[in-house]
């Protein structure tokens, strides 16, 4: 109990829930504690319940659990929504002076703090959330000083007076609780360490990866949950000579990125749901014109506008098969926040090495979750850039035909052609979505068509051989039962291992970051007694792929409630599935 603390603040959207939560998360991170955050939010801006949840431990944590220890409730709904997760030892901070009368179950500890009045004492009612943070520190036995740095970070831009007032507000909250309550029996005592951590979410990691990878042009159109990638890049990409354009729609965004890429810049767009549908029109053009670019899909619940603020992994088939005709592509799906960084870099390298569109498929849970990492997890010295067969004035000659024309779509053994960007002498050439010959000129000649289609697919074959389509492995490699997952489920699964171990259940976990091409898991599947595929969708799109690849029936755990997997819940589901009858192989 002393190690883990599950804390949350909840209220109406517009109450500053997010920034307050973030301040506390940063303070915990500064204290050398691991932090894993999650958010409950509705698709509206004002009104509507919203919560920011933090799980913190000195141990590494990678998922959420079904428990809340300290809750700052700005509304009754915050309490009601979380009743399942509250327990006897839970403390609930609320403002009894406000007009609502908190209904708090008897067995829990009600901590009535005059948030608003204390905030006013500190300089303004607006700081009531910070008073609540101070109160939370008192309950958790966590030194309020750790909040200071986070408050400076948050309010530094508004002047030292504001920062000082906020620090005072936190202390007033802490003092009030210490003076009026004796909560030692709750037993919360947050240990601190000297570890240095950074705290970031998956979209920030993608944005940071893009900058590290040399992405200099980004065009996008706002859509939840992809927008924060654009927000991250805006204001930062300029430092590296780049630029972000907010396009008029997704059709425009992907076409702008295509233009940037053809002009030689590492270019990217990101979207979700309906936006991916719109981009599909241009997807085939990107592939056929052999333009290297990264298209990021941060999945949310579909179809149509579905549940825009809820988790799902339902776009796998779209990424694999979307677009008319047959389109060679790569589909890469990071499995954690650090992988969001590394796989983004890899996506840019793959795009340029093979001159194809690369789908970078993330999901809502990863995009909004903030997690702590040692800074070395994002070691910039390890970043490698591979721009592929880019020719220049000196190397272009070998790719010119007898008439001195550049063979932009030269048919090569590995399927990869030379690439000349504008300004390269003698490199002028046409790129088109029409079928074309080596020079990029339209053709409908049967043999030429076949040569070009084969050439484009040969890139995938080459990549399949040359690249390392590895997977990540956890648990006991010799266990009889195998659980396979993709995307953000990895964290919950890794933690579920602990719960399963306690019950004496041993499993091997394989987490796959590559959807196409992907590692061949036939041997692994055949060696296992039971195989379970875990994913956040209703139909088991990844399970279908595994069955297709291995000609073996697998068990499935599918969640499509809009909420991500929790570690304890997943452990239970795995136990149930292992007990269930094995589907016919």
């Amino acid at each position, binding site marked *: 109990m002393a190690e883990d603390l599950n804390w949350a603040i909840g209220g109406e959207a517009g109450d500053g829930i997010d920034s307050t939560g973030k301040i506390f998360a940063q303070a915990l*991170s500064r204290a050398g504690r691991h932090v894993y955050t999650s958010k409950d939010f509705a698709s509206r801006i004002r009104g509507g319940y919203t919560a920011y949840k933090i799980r913190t431990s000195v141990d590494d944590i990678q998922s959420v659990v079904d428990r809340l220890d300290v809750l700052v409730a700005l509304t009754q709904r915050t309490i009601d929504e979380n009743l399942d997760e509250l327990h006897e030892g839970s403390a609930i901070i609320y403002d009894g002076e406000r007009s609502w009368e908190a209904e708090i179950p008897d067995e829990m500890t009600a901590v009535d703090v005059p948030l608003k009045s204390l905030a006013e004492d500190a300089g303004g009612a607006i700081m009531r959330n910070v008073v609540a943070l101070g109160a939370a520190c008192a309950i958790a036995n966590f030194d309020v000083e750790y909040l200071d740095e986070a408050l400076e970070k948050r309010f530094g831009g508004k002047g030292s007076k504001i920062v000082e007032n906020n620090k005072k507000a936190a202390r007033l909250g802490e003092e009030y609780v210490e003076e009026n309550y004796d909560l030692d029996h709750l037993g919360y005592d947050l240990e601190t360490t000297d570890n240095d*951590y*950074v*705290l970031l979410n998956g979209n920030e990691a993608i944005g*940071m990866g893009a*900058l*590290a*990878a*040399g992405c*200099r*042009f980004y*065009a996008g159109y706002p859509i939840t949950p992809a927008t924060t990638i654009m927000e991250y890049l805006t204001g*930062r990409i*300029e430092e590296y*000579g*780049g*630029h972000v*354009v907010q*396009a*008029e*729609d997704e*059709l*425009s*965004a992907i*076409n*702008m990125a*295509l*233009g*940037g*890429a*053809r*002009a*030689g*810049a590492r270019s990217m767009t990101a979207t979700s749901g309906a936006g991916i549908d719109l981009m599909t*029109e*241009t997807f085939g053009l990107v592939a056929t014109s052999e333009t290297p670019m990264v298209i990021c899909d941060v999945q949310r619940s579909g179809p149509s506008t579905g549940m825009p603020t809820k988790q799902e992994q339902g776009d796998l088939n779209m990424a694999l098969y979307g677009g008319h005709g047959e389109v060679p592509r790569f589909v890469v799906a990071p499995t954690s926040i650090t992988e969001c960084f590394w796989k983004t870099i890899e996506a840019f390298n793959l795009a340029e090495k093979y001159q194809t569109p690369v789908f970078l498929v993330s999901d809502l849970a990863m995009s909004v979750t903030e997690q702590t990492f040692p*800074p070395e997890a*994002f070691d*910039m*010295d390890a970043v*490698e*850039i591979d*721009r592929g067969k880019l020719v220049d004035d000196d190397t272009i000659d070998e790719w010119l035909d007898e008439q001195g*024309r550049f063979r932009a779509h030269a048919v090569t053994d590995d399927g990869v052609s030379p690439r000349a*960007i*504008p*300004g*390269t*002498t*003698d*490199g*002028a*050439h*046409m*790129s*088109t*979505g*029409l079928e074309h010959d080596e020079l990029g*000129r*339209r053709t409908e000649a049967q043999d030429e068509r076949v040569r070009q289609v084969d050439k484009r697919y040969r890139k995938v074959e080459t990549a399949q051989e040359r690249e390392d389509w590895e997977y990540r492995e956890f648990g006991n490699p010799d266990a009889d039962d195998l659980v396979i997952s993709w995307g953000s489920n990895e964290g919950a699964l890794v933690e579920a291992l602990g719960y399963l171990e306690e019950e004496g259940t041993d499993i091997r976990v394989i987490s796959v970051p590559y959807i196409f091409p992907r590692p061949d898991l036939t041997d692994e599947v055949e060696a296992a007694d039971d195989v379970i595929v875990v994913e956040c969708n209703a139909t088991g799109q990844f399970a279908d792929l595994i069955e297709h690849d291995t000609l073996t029936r697998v068990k499935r755990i599918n969640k499509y409630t809009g909420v991500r997997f929790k570690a304890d819940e997943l452990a239970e589901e795995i136990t149930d599935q292992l007990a269930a009858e094995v589907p016919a192989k």
Partner: protein
Amino acid sequence: MSSDVRFTDFKSDKQPTWCPGCGDFGTMNGMMKALAETGNDPDNTFVVAGIGCSGKIGTYMHSYALHGVHGRALPVGTGVKMARPDIEVMVAGGDGDGYSIGAGHFVHAVRRNVDMSYIVMDNRIYGLTKGQASPTSRSDFETSTTPEGPKQPPVNPLALALASGASFIAQSFASDALRHQEIVQQAIEHDGFGFVNVFSPCVTFNDVDTYDYFRDNLVDLEEAGHDPSDYEAAKEVILDSDKEYQGVMYQDENSVPYHEQHGVTEDMSEIPDGAPEDAMDLVREFY
């Protein structure tokens, strides 16, 4: 960039498949001449084309080029120019391509004022799909899909541009070779989005908006003494639906192109071999 570039350097070795007599021949010649005349060469020029008979222009010209999907040429051109302010960008397409499926992009490209030229071959018909009504077709113009005419007023692309905050609006006629070339040249030289609507007759599917019709009805604004810097005068000619005009209708002398407003000046194709030198700062931001 060499100074001895001839306009034929911008010609590809593909023979156009346009119908003999199509206005697009003249339109393209003027574009190539204007590019050569303004000191560009194929290796520093990027031509983006739409879809339609008009969009085939990219195939018949020689430069860095992209022939994209229907209606989306302007965003591609925008992307090219953002990444490479050093490259001359020209976007070309038809009236269906630009004012129907691409109308949204048109409005936004205009208001962004990216420094590129946009040449629309307006034949007031869909040519490539064999003669359906286009957004600029007359309301009583009978086509395969509008047997009694569209019964809607045509789009006025010049007015649309003006309303969207255009900094350069012009119109030319494919067959008035010299004037057409001059006008395209001015669009290229304009600091910002240089928009030219070109009357480019479709000899196969449009027997109303013909060469003869334009020859008989065209009023040259230069000869008429029009002052393109006079916004009110521009508004008047642009909204005058009784006459057909050629020439520069409006040019904002204070136009500041997108890249200057936003400080986009670098060649974005150059990136370091590994992560940028101070990249660890990006990580430290998250402390």
